[in-house]
């Protein structure tokens, strides 16, 4: 089939957003009926309702007139004077054409907005960095915008002398900047038993990746003279209403990985993400990344905080609850094509997605388009960093037939992301947390992609 074979119903992507919702609907309806040649006229019909100058733009390939009017008729932005520099005091915003790309809540998941979740729009993101305004949120008792001049950080417990630091002081210390993912332990929780939500945003959107800047916690512990031999655990405590606490593994602190962070993607943390100070615990579930961090305490025993003794415990089939399950194991998800999306036509696509591991670097990602029967190794894009999101891509030509797309990540410990079958065999379906099973997306003949699970 030639690329410009119009009779096959193939269309080329137009340079503008030219498909109305109704147009797409019509195309799928007709496509379902096997009338793929209907596509061109449907697009033209849809265009009739839009501004007249764009009419010909929908008639790709080359219109009778001998060219695309978007090329032939120079637009206003090429023939007029553009806008001036941003006014004083303004903060740059995305294009007005990008308003669909937002954090979203899953309806009915929680009863209050203060103890709730907003999901990051993974299906619309590129690369590995999550724009700070699209970083997922999980609050346990509401968020605050705290005056940094009044925020204090305390180190106490098994230390020679308990210390307090102002933000000024913490920011004077030598800093490190590192890319790390943060994933909620309950990411993909809704899918343990069966498919429950439609898109990658809701299945996997409780993960984000940022460049964090701050001071290694070990530096601050050493300044207080911490007993690193007998002090096997560290309690991290937030400064907000619930003063959220978590037990932090000392091994990650002494390795220098745990950061007391104030920076996120080149600016200060966003208030929803803990401004002015949060803990960064690479590879560990998000609940340990205590926001509004006010205190760490060095101790010789774990603390069994509410979020490690009542929640964030993993139910096994025999009713036993696993406590202190911290590591986010190796996982991946294809973000395009993904659930709730519609492919415009058959032909070439770049399958793209994200992979990560709480134990280190992603070593490889394999992608299947036949529901796991055959796999091809995807390209990993740089940078590939430890405990950070890794972007993968793979060429794919869709033949218009149903396809089930999956990705399967392997990390540098050799651990291979499990299937649902393997994971459920050990953990059952009621553990809520740490679902890192392989995700399946069904691409239907009409181009619509559905969240499915296989038997």
């Amino acid at each position, binding site marked *: 089939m030639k690329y410009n074979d119009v009779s096959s119903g193939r269309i080329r992507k137009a340079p503008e957003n030219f498909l109305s919702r109704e147009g797409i609907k019509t195309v799928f309806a007709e496509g379902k009926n096997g009338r793929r040649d209907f596509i061109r006229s449907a697009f033209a019909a849809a265009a009739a309702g839009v501004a007249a100058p764009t009419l010909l733009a929908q008639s790709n390939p080359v219109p009778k007139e001998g060219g695309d009017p978007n090329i032939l008729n120079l637009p206003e932005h090429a023939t007029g004077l553009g806008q001036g520099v941003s006014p004083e005091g303004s903060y740059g915003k995305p294009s007005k054409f990008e308003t669909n790309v937002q954090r979203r809540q899953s309806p009915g998941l929680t009863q209050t907005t203060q103890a709730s979740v907003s999901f990051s729009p993974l299906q619309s993101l590129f690369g590995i960095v999550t724009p700070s305004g699209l970083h997922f949120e999980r609050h346990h008792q509401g968020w605050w915008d705290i005056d940094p001049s009044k925020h204090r950080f305390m180190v106490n417990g098994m230390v*020679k002398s308990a210390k307090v630091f102002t933000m000024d002081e913490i920011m004077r210390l030598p800093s490190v900047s590192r890319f790390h993912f943060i994933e909620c332990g309950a990411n993909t929780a809704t899918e343990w038993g069966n498919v429950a939500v439609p898109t990658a945003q809701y299945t996997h959107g409780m993960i984000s990746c940022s460049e964090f800047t701050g001071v290694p916690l070990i530096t601050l512990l050493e300044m207080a003279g911490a007993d690193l031999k007998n002090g096997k655990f560290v309690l991290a405590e937030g400064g907000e209403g619930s003063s959220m606490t978590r037990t932090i593994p000392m091994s990650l602190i002494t390795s220098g990985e745990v950061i007391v962070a104030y920076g996120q993607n080149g600016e200060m943390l966003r208030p929803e993400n803990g401004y002015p100070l949060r803990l960064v615990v690479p590879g560990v579930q998000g609940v340990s990344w205590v926001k509004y961090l006010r205190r760490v305490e060095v101790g010789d025993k774990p603390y069994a905080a509410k979020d490690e003794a009542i929640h964030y*415990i993993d139910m096994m089939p025999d009713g036993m609850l696993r406590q202190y399950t911290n590591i986010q194991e190796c996982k991946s998800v294809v973000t395009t094509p993904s659930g709730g999306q519609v492919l415009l036509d058959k032909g070439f696509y770049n399958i793209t997605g994200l992979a990560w591991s709480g134990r280190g670097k992603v070593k*490889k990602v394999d992608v299947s388009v036949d529901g796991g029967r055959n796999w091809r190794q995807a390209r990993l894009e740089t940078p590939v960093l430890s405990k950070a999101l890794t972007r993968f891509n793979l060429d794919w030509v869709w033949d218009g037939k149903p396809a089930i797309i999956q990705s399967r990540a392997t990390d540098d410990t050799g651990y291979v992301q499990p299937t649902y079958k393997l994971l459920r065999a050990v953990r059952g379906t009621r553990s809520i947390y740490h679902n890192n099973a392989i995700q399946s997306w069904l691409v239907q003949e009409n181009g619509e992609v559905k969240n499915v699970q296989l038997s």
Partner: protein
Amino acid sequence: MSSFRNAVIAGAMVAVASIAMAQTASKYTGVGRDATSKEVAAWDIDVRPDFKGLPPGSGSVAKGQDVWEAKCAHCHGVFGDSGEFFSPLVGGTTANDVKTGRVAKLTDSTVGRTTFMKVASLSTVWDYINRAMPWTQPKSLTTEEVYAVTAFLLNLSNVVPDNYTLSDKNMADVQARMPNRNGMTTQHAMWPGNEFNGTKVPDAKNVACMKDCATEPKVASFLPDFARNAHGNLADQNRTVGPQRGADTSAPEGKAPAAGAAAAGVPVMVAQATKAPEVAKPAATAAPGGADTKAVMALLAKHSCVACHGIDKKIVGPAFTDIAKKQAGKVDYLAGKIKSGGSGVWGGIPMPAQALSEADAKTIAVWIAAGAGK
């Protein structure tokens, strides 16, 4: 002799260590200062499972009930078992669980998990109430109130008797009665260090097979059609440029637009996805009896019946409409049941006896017996 020698060596090592420590600290001259004991006391409020950090004090079940009803019940329900805003705290534990330290109902997948079914450490309950409750006024409870509320929840869970006073002296005794005290394990591969002596072997052992790996895949689970638009219109949740669009889930899949709709030509890009999800609501019907029904509703609210019973949906106890079906016309029986409480008719969760007047009980019973209409 040898002990003297060891002591000298140990002393020397401590000296070396402290010099190293001092050097580390002095490296960052002028940064940070010692916390005062007053400052540490103000913030160091955590209580560990071995009760390190627990302040002395006590509080009774009776006092706890008063505090509960004033400050806690509106979110958690009068008996701590409401799931309206948060997961239920109380319920699902038995006297036998108190004996074994394992909550039997955790193996029953049809039963929801309450806090007291899960929690193994009593310190966790005390600590969280102390640091984070009430929801809108955290840290406003006195030490006595924290003990009292903890005692009240323990009483509701049948861990301590009605006349119990919980204190720093008997917390360890009560810990030994926690229904799920033996229900936690750290034997897994998901803690990064060796502190818990867990395994290093992850649960699932997949292999990266590349060719002819699985049998023909069968789709076993997908979203039903009626849930198509449950998360709002997905067309508005995807970028409007690129290799894909969002599926229009405002209409059934594959349905052609209604005549004339295409002409509207609304660009996807300006559409907003802020629509509230549609939640099925029972159709409002004219209330038979008018003012009477209103009065009953007021009584149901006044006596907190609705914390446990929905009009037409089960919460902790059965829906009023379900009771109406089962006990139609039995006014006296229902009035008696309301006052005396009981269990067994609708499952194992008991309804406590209610302290309301004969007249109120009768009014509610008449309404239920007549069908519990709105």
